[in-house]
């Protein structure tokens, strides 16, 4: 049974359980809800949760575990001889999965009957049959792959049946168990409380585990890359010259320099403008002005970065070229440059800085302002000497967050800064950043086992470490000032 239906059935069971549990509790109290230990809805919720949570938990675990188990068991069965010279086990496995999925598809479209799919023999017709349902295979199917694919299909089908049976049994069991406990003196409220706690813990763990998974995959692939390419080269080489034929030079420094340079220009634009805008909005603007201006600024934050990228490429670049290009000052060769990307990225970050700072400034208690005005201070004195110091930790945090975004930004750089990895001080030169290069290393026909593709993970890891460092630094600053001020 498809998982969707399974979940739906369990959900319906929970819904019915809610009504029945409630009714039963009321009945056991003779219709007088004051006799019950908890409100009737808690008894209903208890039944619903008992049916729902364990069953859905099982679905989740099963969906993650099943492919792992089946893959492991089948790849153990594939003989070494079935792996062609230039291929690997994982490539063969992906062929197996494709064949199996293709067969499933063929059966569901009626091209093959279920029995025929089981008894196919490995002749040349399979490739055509599967091609007809839209699954293109690179080569003919060998008997080993076919038999592995058949095993894969049977195991999958069995797993799916097992899942359905177990989940329904579990949901029903939970339902019956909770119903049997539904009596007037049963402490449903406490049980529901701990049930909700379990749900929340589960949600938090999923968030944490996914992050952990991403970080681990980054780390393993980075290690893989450093096996193929020396780390010392990666971190110290001043040239970035990947070539897919081999003999690439993959030094991160030019990319890091580009990232830093563009981010610094972006922050130089965004921080003063954003901060001043926030100060104006929170301290000077009348409610009417504020009501119009704040949403307007926040609209900037809703513009997709690709649009900013277009803006950089088509408007800002040519504009800068007119002034600083060959016809003007002669510093700029082309529209794509660090300056172009930096300016546009700065504009993108303005609402980010201003709306965060605005919130932070507004959080400074009115009593602080009153105290300062009461001593005869002017508005700007109050802002400079009382409000900004009090809001400083938060503002620094906002700026560091903006910096993280600038460092991670991709689209504006791809379109606005050019693609040349270069170490130069001239802000009107084209340069490129770490993120832009991650994109270009992974797009196209990359062989994911080559250093030229794996370098993307090392780049990503480096970016991750930098952003993490920035965030930790932001936290440190906030803590430090907090101690001093509160």
């Amino acid at each position: 049974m498809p998982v969707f239906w399974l979940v739906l059935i369990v959900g319906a069971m929970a819904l019915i359980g809610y009504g029945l549990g409630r009714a039963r509790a009321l009945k056991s109290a003779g219709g007088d809800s004051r006799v019950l230990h908890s409100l009737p809805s808690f008894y209903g919720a208890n039944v619903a949760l008992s049916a729902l949570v364990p069953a859905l938990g099982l679905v989740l675990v099963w969906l993650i575990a099943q492919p792992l188990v089946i893959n492991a068991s089948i790849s153990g069965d594939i003989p070494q001889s079935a792996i062609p010279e230039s291929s690997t086990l994982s490539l063969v496995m992906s062929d197996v999965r494709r064949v199996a999925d293709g067969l499933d598809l063929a059966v569901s479209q009626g091209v093959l009957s279920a029995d025929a799919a089981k008894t196919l023999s490995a002749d040349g017709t399979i490739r055509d049959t599967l091609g007809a349902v839209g699954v293109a295979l690179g080569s003919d199917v060998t008997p080993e792959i076919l038999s592995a694919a058949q095993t894969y299909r049977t195991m999958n089908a069995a797993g799916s049946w097992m899942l359905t049976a177990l989940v329904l049994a579990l949901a029903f069991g939970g339902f019956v168990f909770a119903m049997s406990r539904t009596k007037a003196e049963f402490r449903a409220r406490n049980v529901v409380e701990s049930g909700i706690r379990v749900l929340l813990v589960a949600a938090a763990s999923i968030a944490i585990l996914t992050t952990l998974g991403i970080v681990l995959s980054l780390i393993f692939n980075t290690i893989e890359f450093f096996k193929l390419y020396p780390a010392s080269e990666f971190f110290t080489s001043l040239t970035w010259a990947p070539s897919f034929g081999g003999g690439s030079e993959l030094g991160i420094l030019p990319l890091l320099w580009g990232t830093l340079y563009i981010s610094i220009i972006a922050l130089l634009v965004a921080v003063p403008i954003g901060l001043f805008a926030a100060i104006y909005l929170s301290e000077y603007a009348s409610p009417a002005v504020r009501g119009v201006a704040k949403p307007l600024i926040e609209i900037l934050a809703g513009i997709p970065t690709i649009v900013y990228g277009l803006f950089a490429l088509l408007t800002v670049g040519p504009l800068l070229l007119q002034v600083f290009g060959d016809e003007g000052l002669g510093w700029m060769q082309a529209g794509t440059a660090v300056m172009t990307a930096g300016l546009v990225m700065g504009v993108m970050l303005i609402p980010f800085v201003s709306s965060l700072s605005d919130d932070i400034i507004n959080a400074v208690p009115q009593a602080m302002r009153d105290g300062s005005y009461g001593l005869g201070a002017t508005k700007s004195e109050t802002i400079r000497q009382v409000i900004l110091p009090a809001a400083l930790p938060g503002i620094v945090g906002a700026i560091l967050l903006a910096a993280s975004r600038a460092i991670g930004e991709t689209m504006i750089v791809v379109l606005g800064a050019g693609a040349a990895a270069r170490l130069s001080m001239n802000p009107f030169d084209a340069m490129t950043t770490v993120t832009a290069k991650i994109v270009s290393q992974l797009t196209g026909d990359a062989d994911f086992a080559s250093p030229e593709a794996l370098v993307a993970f090392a780049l990503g890891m480096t970016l991750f470490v930098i952003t993490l460092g920035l965030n930790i630094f932001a936290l440190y600053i906030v803590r430090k000032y907090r101690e001093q001020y509160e």
Partner: protein
Amino acid sequence: MYDAPNREMKVDQKTTKISARGVQVYYGDTHAIKDVDVDIEDRTVTAFIGPSGCGKSTFLRCLNRMNDTIDVCRVKGEIKLDGEDIYDKRVDPVQLRAKVGMVFQKPNPFPKSIYDNVAYGPRIHGLARDKADLDEIVERALRRGAIWNEVKDRLDAPGTGLSGGQQQRLCIARAVATEPEVLLMDEPCSALDPIATAQVEELIDELRESYSVVIVTHSMQQAARVSQKTAFFHLGNLVEFGETGQIFTNPQDSRTESYITGRIG
């Protein structure tokens, strides 16, 4: 110490420092102060008393235009400081507040060091010639605020780290440091123990020699001890205003009498 209102002050010829006529205050649609006339004399302590929510703080805040910072608040009528209308367009509220200082109902030290808190006003108004001068001003203010002994060893510590009562005295010191001509104090002793209260009252008495002081208080005894004039507010009206001794011994209005004897409020 808590004896009956007496301490007959020799009230000699005093000039009027602040005179308010027909003052009305609205918070949006709420009419918080209704047609109040008061004369605050120079070198005098004037006490505002009255039940909670009757508008004492609101009226106090009119006197240095702190109500300007509240969007919904409108003030009508005439308030004159030394004969000049403070709500006149030409008057700079910033200048006014330097002359009419304020201690707020809730202590609100800045998130700065104790020293910087007190030095804030003098620095803004350029009252100190040099660092030594500033040090002296700060020390004097802290002594007058009756907090010097507690903080003299930790002037660099944050003002927000003090206890509630210490913060209140720090705020008093901060207000005194700018040498205002009028000091408005909104329940300055609400968070203080009897000893600190006595010290603050001593300060008020001392300030009276050169300034005029307006104090809001919920303590009848305090009003009787420190003030020469008392104003009784009730539901936004100024019910009675006169010599402290007379208000406490021989009130004219029955509401005043009920309040000071503890029957309303």
